[in-house]
Each structure stands twice: as C-alpha cells, then as structure tokens.
C-alpha cells in the first residue's frame, strides 16, 4: 500500500506517493525525475547516491523514502542558482575534479556537508571524510584539490 510523504526538494515542497520499501534514491530519480543523483553500487559502498537530508550527507540508496518524510532534501540539481554555479561546482570544473562524472554528484553533495564546517581542514582529514565515496577515474587527487579550492573560495567570500 502506498503512503503519501511530504518532502522539500531543492527548496520546493512536493508530495509524493511511495511504497514503504521505495528507497529514497528511487523516489528522487524515478518519481521526482531528478536523475543527477546516481546509483553506483546499490550496496551502501560507493556514495554516488549521496544527497543532503536536513543538511547532512546521507546515502539515499540506504534509506527508505518514508524515513525522509517532512525532511529537506538537496540534490546536485539544487546547487546552481540559475546560471551561476555553486562554488563547489566551479572548483570541480576548474580543478578537473571529474573525468567520467559518474561519482561527481555524490562527491559534491558530500563536499557540501564538509564545507559547512567553519574550521580549517587538513588534507589528511579531508581524505578521511571521502572514505564513503568511490571514484574509478580521477585517483582522488583532483577531487581533494577541488574541495580544498572550494573551501578557499567560500572562506574568501564569507
């Protein structure tokens, strides 16, 4: 039996009907048609499905959509404002933080939570925080550089 849930997705309120077993990532991709959020492994390992739920990075393949009822969800589609890229997107673009791009939405959404922290972050700690996100292409160095660059960008503005 389907259940009605309310979400605020990228700032917009929406109401959808889901089976309790519907995973959040499939609600996002197949009901809301926001296909920027990817499914890489479907086994909680790769982080391609990472979105923000009430500001915290979560793996949307490992949550039921009903658990997100009443929550704010931010997906990669919610980062840019009209034509203006979010600093994290700008940094990934300039620092070559992606190659095939499959892992990129998850990497950027994880980075969004990391970038909320006000304190300085060592490269070592940054690398540790990327533990739950896999990339088959870049070798991670450019991803680390991109996030550090975004951090510098956002600190400069603040």
């Amino acid at each position, binding site marked *: 039996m389907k259940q009605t849930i309310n979400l605020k997705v990228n700032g917009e309120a929406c109401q959808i009907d889901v089976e309790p077993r519907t995973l959040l990532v499939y609600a996002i991709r197949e009901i809301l048609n926001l296909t920027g959020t990817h499914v890489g492994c479907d086994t909680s390992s790769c982080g391609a499905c990472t979105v923000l739920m009430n500001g915290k990075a*979560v793996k949307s393949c490992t949550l039921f959509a009903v*658990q997100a009822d009443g929550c704010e969800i931010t997906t990669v589609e919610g980062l840019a404002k009209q034509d203006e890229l979010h600093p994290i997107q700008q940094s990934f673009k300039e620092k070559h933080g992606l190659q095939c791009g499959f892992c990129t939405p998850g990497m950027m959404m*994880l980075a969004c939570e990391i970038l909320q922290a006000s304190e300085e972050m060592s490269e070592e700690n940054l690398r540790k925080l990327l533990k739950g996100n896999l990339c088959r292409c870049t070798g991670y160095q450019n991803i680390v550089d991109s996030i550090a660059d975004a951090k510098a960008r956002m600190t400069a503005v603040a």
Partner: protein
Amino acid sequence: MIPASFEYFRANSVDEAIEMMAKYGDEAKILAGGQSLIPMMKLRFARPAKLIDIGRIDSLRYITLDGDTVKIGGLTTHRDLETSNLIAEKIPVLAECAHEIADLQIRNVGTIGGSLAHADPSADYPPVMLALDATVVARGQNGTREISINDFFISPFTTALGQDELLIEVKIPAMKSNEKGAYIKIAHPATGFGVVNCAVKIALSNGKITNARVAFGSFVTVPYRDESIEKFLQEKEATVDTIKQASEMVAEGKDIIGDYYADADYRRNLAKAVFLRVMKKALNLDS
C-alpha cells in the same frame, strides 16, 4: 536491489513503539537508522512484514552527564558521539571509536542502539563497550531493566534484548583521571569492518596497573573480555615488558574465525600485535 514489501509504522514515542512491538510480535522489526537493517533487507536476509520506525523519537537522542555516569540515548548517532564535547572530555576513546565506523554518511544516520542491537561481531562498539563497563538500558512491556554489557552479546547478531524490548539508553562510567582508554581496529580494506579489534581501559597508580579491562572483537563470534589477561596485568608495572608477557596470552583457547581474507593463524598473531599497540597507546609507551 529492492527489499520485500512491508508495512510501515512510525512510532512517535517510546511507549508507542513498545505498544506496537507487543502488538505485532516477531512479525515486526525496529527501524532506527536503517544502516544495517536496510542492507540486510535489500539482500533479503531480513524480510520483516512490518517495520516500526523509531527514528523520529527525539527524546532518545541525547548525551548527558549524571554524576559520574555518561548517559547516551539509544538513537544517538555515531556522528553525535564522534563530535560531542562531553564525550571528548569524559570518554575520549568512545569518540575515537565512533570515528572509526564506516563513513561520514553512515555515521550521520546509524545509531549506537542500532549497532549494539544488531550485534555484528566485527562492529566497532562491542569491545569498547566491554572495556568501558557499559550498561544497556532496555524497556519493554514489563518495564525497564538494566543489562550489563558482559551479559549483552549472546551470539552473532543476537543479544540479551527481549523480542518486545527497546534499547533506550547506554550508561558508561566517565573516565577517572588515573584511567586511560585506547581502541584500535584493523579493518578489512574493502568493507571497513574489523578483522581484529581491541579496546582497553587501564587504571594506574604510581606507575602500576591497578585495574585493567581488556576486550577483543572481530576474530571471534562473540566479542569478549579476557579476564586472565586482566588478572595478569593487575598490580604489574606499566612497562613494555609487562605488556609483552601479557600479549602471549591473547586469544588463548579461543576459536578463531578465518576466511579468505584473513585466516585464523594470521588473526591470532594480529590480535597479539594489536593488543600490544593498544596497550602502548593507553600507557603512552614508545618502543
């Protein structure tokens, strides 16, 4: 991977959750963060007909100090513990342990109650809880009871919690100024779960060990405290020599898990090495 269908119920209070558990019996399972249960349901290792979601019971998410006891609500996330100032001050080894669990996304959602109730023998909390002398508080239809952590883990994925009982709190004595704790996990490189993990809490007085709690996990089916090692350490000088002698006793007489990644002999030797490292860390010894 799609889990089998189930009926979903959200409990808004502990009482409501317990009522639902009593009503639905073993048809139902509790859903906390879902970070163990959902993967199990996707693989269809678990096919509960009903889920009782306790994730919104905010009154179960807290970390407080009551006299010399730190009280942690069952729904407190790994991330809460990792970043709590109170934990950093009163039980720093627990913050280190929580930090070792999975990745940021899982730590944002997974809960201490869920991890303990799940009782994966290679999880991070069990040896740490054993070393810290934790008490689990459970509430069911027949009221609230306390379970010593020594009696909590029964077999892999099975605890002393009753079918209708909710893990509502974990109580841990705050570390005293003469007590040191340490925890080390050697993780499987792909899954991040332990191959060997070991936690200790050592009380010291004038360079002597006055009390020791030593616990192991991951290489046995049920995490355990090694009371022979604890007894051996009692009243000994806190030296490298002492801990080297003690390390010979590690895993003695234990049935050790072996698999394609790490066979039993390897794990036995690794457990000795990890014990040495943990003790050196706790006692601040170098060589």
